[in-house]
């Protein structure tokens, strides 16, 4: 496989019916590239959690997925409210999701912990009032 493939997705805010489409698309592309089921599943889960977070909290954003010979890098950038306390947000069960979001089965405070669990590296750059950029890597 040659390196340097990049996919870019714009995520709509508050459109729950479409949430997950970008992650599904990436999953199918990785499958077609012949990557292992394990890597594909980990990328799909981590990206979906991030995608859902963008829809719930940040009114959407942009996701870029780069595939190289050695790793897959996902960059999720939004101009949402930022995360005031990253340490708290990383704790399982801590959530600031609205009731309507919870009634759909989300907002259990598992998103960020899952993203960390399923990736080899995760970095959160966030500024309150400006937005959040999360970079995740899965090594091949």
């Amino acid at each position: 496989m040659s390196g340097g493939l990049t996919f870019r997705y714009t995520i709509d805010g508050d459109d729950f019916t479409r949430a997950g489409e970008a992650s599904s698309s990436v999953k199918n592309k990785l499958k077609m590239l012949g990557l292992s089921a394990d890597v594909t599943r980990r990328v799909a889960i981590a990206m979906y959690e991030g995608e859902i977070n963008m829809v719930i909290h940040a009114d959407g954003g942009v996701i870029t997925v780069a595939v190289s010979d050695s790793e897959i890098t996902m960059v999720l950038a939004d101009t949402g409210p930022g995360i005031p306390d990253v340490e708290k947000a990383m704790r399982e069960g801590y959530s600031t999701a609205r009731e309507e979001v919870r009634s759909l089965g989300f907002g259990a405070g598992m998103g960020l912990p899952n993203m960390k669990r399923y990736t080899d590296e995760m970095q959160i750059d966030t500024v309150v009032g400006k937005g959040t950029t999360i970079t995740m890597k899965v090594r091949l």
Partner: protein
Amino acid sequence: MKVRTILELPDCRVLASGCPEREITRIFCCDLLSIAMSKAPAGGVWVTVMGNRNTLAVASLTDTACIILAEGVTLDEGTAAKAEEEGIAVLTTGLPVFDMALKIHEAWEP
């Protein structure tokens, strides 16, 4: 056990038949999509009362083979068609989650 066996279970109505020849790996019950996202096993049959488009997205991303909607929960036609497209079997039953899961278990190891 194959998906086909589940499609033929009594008390269930098939909304999408998915891949009937696919082998089932495990039975999984969960109604919180956030938890299903991290725990649903690949190739599993997932029994839940959450029947919305996001249920399907989670099933697709976790490689779930079959969703059974309990307590009479169903899917709208568009979502059922999407499930068929994704190769995921979807059934609905009036049974509660536990009773349904037990029936699958019994069909597996009679």
